[in-house]
């Protein structure tokens, strides 16, 4: 990196001080002309990370596309809380088809626009981790390998929350869900399972892959803006805490997301054509415990007695991420 990123630590409260920035660098959400694409009044839970992530991502995509945007939505929380007939929180052309086909539907929209010779309209597809890493994975891979002109946004809350918190291929080790319960000899989700879709996306060699978090909404907006300025298949994987499924305080959504980033459990990076080109450095590394203890889905690691081995295993994952992605200067190769 040649430029110094602006950090928002000055107040000691992590407040994002837009006023410290040049007007052009301020967040999309702070602008008078933000589009409120996902409008208020929808039915998301208090503290929903997905609603927050989607609002920032889609408004940023709208700004970059000069409000010429079509969004395709997989079945899931975002779809259900935003579009119960006859209401809709969407102020943009928006379509929901099925759980597992959002990438293909979006490819179809892009193909129709191409057939009609329209290059003024951009297409995004969005879904949760279930729709993305599991049931829609075939369609997602197809969209990637054909390099269809679609930006896919995955809002990862690490389980099937809409159906009542069941394990997905994105559920982290040891996490309690209703299908990986905190019982038996190995309570919670099994270690050594799951998949890393950002890396799989990169393996397709698509133009742009990034991870983002609601802990840093400015960075999320910037990544969406970058992705929207490009053509071809693009993928952004956004970490969005779910108070209901994670058993965290709705007031702590940003804090939980930040601990995931600052511990190294959720590395933030950008990749182009299959190679990582940038990563968000960890400012003050925290132990994974700081992240885990905010969520009741990991209660069994602390009560009735502390599971040191499990906590160490999770810490090892975070440390490996820090080394692999060079998240702390001293460890950067």
């Amino acid at each position, binding site marked *: 990196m040649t430029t110094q990123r602006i950090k928002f630590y000055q107040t000691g409260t992590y407040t994002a001080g837009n006023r410290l920035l040049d007007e052009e660098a301020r967040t999309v959400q702070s602008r008078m002309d933000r589009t409120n694409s996902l409008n208020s009044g929808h039915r998301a839970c208090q503290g929903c990370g997905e609603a927050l992530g989607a609002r920032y991502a889609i408004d940023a995509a709208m700004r970059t596309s000069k*409000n*010429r*945007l*079509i969004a*395709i*939505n997989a079945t899931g929380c975002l*779809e*259900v809380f935003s*579009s*119960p*007939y*006859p*209401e*809709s929180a*969407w*102020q*943009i*052309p*928006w*379509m*929901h*088809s*099925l759980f*597992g*086909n959002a990438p*293909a*539907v*979006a*490819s*179809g*929209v*892009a*193909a*129709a*626009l*191409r*057939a*009609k*010779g329209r290059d003024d*309209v951009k297409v995004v597809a969005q879904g949760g981790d279930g729709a993305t890493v599991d049931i829609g994975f*075939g*369609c997602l*891979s*197809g969209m990637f*390998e*054909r390099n*269809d002109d679609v930006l896919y946004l995955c809002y990862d809350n690490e389980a099937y929350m809409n159906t009542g918190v069941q394990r997905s291929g994105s559920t982290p080790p040891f996490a309690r869900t209703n299908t990986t319960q905190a019982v038996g000899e190995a309570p919670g989700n099994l270690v050594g399972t799951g998949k890393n879709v950002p890396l799989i996306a990169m393996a397709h060699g698509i133009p742009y892959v990034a991870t983002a978090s609601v802990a840093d909404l400015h960075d999320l907006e910037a990544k969406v803006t970058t992705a929207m300025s490009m053509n071809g298949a693009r993928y952004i994987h956004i970490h969005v805490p779910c108070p209901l499924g994670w058993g965290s305080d709705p007031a702590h959504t940003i804090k939980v997301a930040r601990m995931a980033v600052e511990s190294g459990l959720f590395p933030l990076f950008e990749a182009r054509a299959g190679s990582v080109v940038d990563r968000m450095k960890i400012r003050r590394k925290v132990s994974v415990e700081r992240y885990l203890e905010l969520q009741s889905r990991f209660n069994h690691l602390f009560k009735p007695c502390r599971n040191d081995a499990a906590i160490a295993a999770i810490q090892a994952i975070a440390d490996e991420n820090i080394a692999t992605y060079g998240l702390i200067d001293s460890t950067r190769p």
Partner: protein
Amino acid sequence: MRAQLEGSQAVAEAIVLCRPEVIAAYPISPQTHIVERLSRMVKQGDVGRCQYLNVESEFGALSVLIGASAAGARTYTATTSQGLLFMAEAVYNAAGLGLPIVMTIANRAVGAPINIWNDHSDSMALRDAGWIQLYAETNQEAADLHIQAFRLAEELSCPVMVCMDGYILTHAYEPVDLPDQASVDAFLPAFSPVQLLDPSEPISIGAMVGPEAFTEVKYLAHQQHLRALTLVQDISDSFERQFHRQSGGLCTGYRMTDADTIVIALGSVIGTIQEAVDGLRNEGIAVGCLKISCYRPFPSQQIRAALESSSRVIVVEKDLAVGMGGIVSADVRMALNGLHIPVHTVIAGLGGRSISTESLKQMVRDVRAERLSEPHFLDLNLRVVDEELARRREQRRAGPLAEQVIRAVNAIGTKVV
């Protein structure tokens, strides 16, 4: 222009005449020749700006079309058998969203046991998914039905399946008269959707509908299908006026005058049945044939009117509702409700088993003599099934049936196909 064409080629040429804008397909026999040809014609620039997408699955293929159609493009795909079942969820979805997609079904059996040959198990499995289902008798009719299908789909805002028998039609060479571009353009106006995904006029499509309105939505879908009954016939008539040949419509009779026995069927077997009817008429048996071209919506009134003066009806169907019998027969019985006309089910042609004129003639004689069980399986190898049934009485064994049956068939030197 009249030419000797393979069925698949005739269909591909007809599709191109309809000016599709997005085609997405996944290869599966016997649909491949259609989409191979289309991909070639798109690539060499014969189809305007049409986009051809090679997708990762049939589910992906139809999903691409759902997006493309919602964005205002005229869309097409073709599939069959396992492919149709693999896309089943999207099949229902396309109908629910009211998207005028046209899809060819190159009818093929559904496994296991895996079988690539023709029967109607695939499209029958999805008969109630909300699509219009048209069945072609010949390659000429297959080509014509596709041109009618786009007009029907777009007028109704409802997807249409054109079903044609795999191999028997898709791979057969027959003379086909393809219309010229100008007359197809005159018959089929450009697609102008009621609503579409467009930033100039943002709408939400595919909202969640709860108990308060779901019944009404379904009722309206039913009404739309009932309207299709009129429209299918109107479009077929309008096609006949313009192109001077009869194709499609709801149902068509053959030698129905004074017929006491009427054989009903769908698809390419109609030709064979008509030949059997001719033979039986020569024997003095008063038999006729009724072809159902439009199976969904089901033309109950027209079928009732065609059958009400007969004494018995035989439905020859290339499908089986296991544990129940015939699928088409059940609908025909409902159409004849209260008329006390016996309806016999004959399951024939499963997995590509040939249906011969001689077997059909014997079938009619047997039905008239009340010699057939219900349902009757045409040309069933009784020796094989009896052996297997006897063996199973001796020893219990769970697992697939096919291997035992194949062994038995080979042991007695009978050709399976």
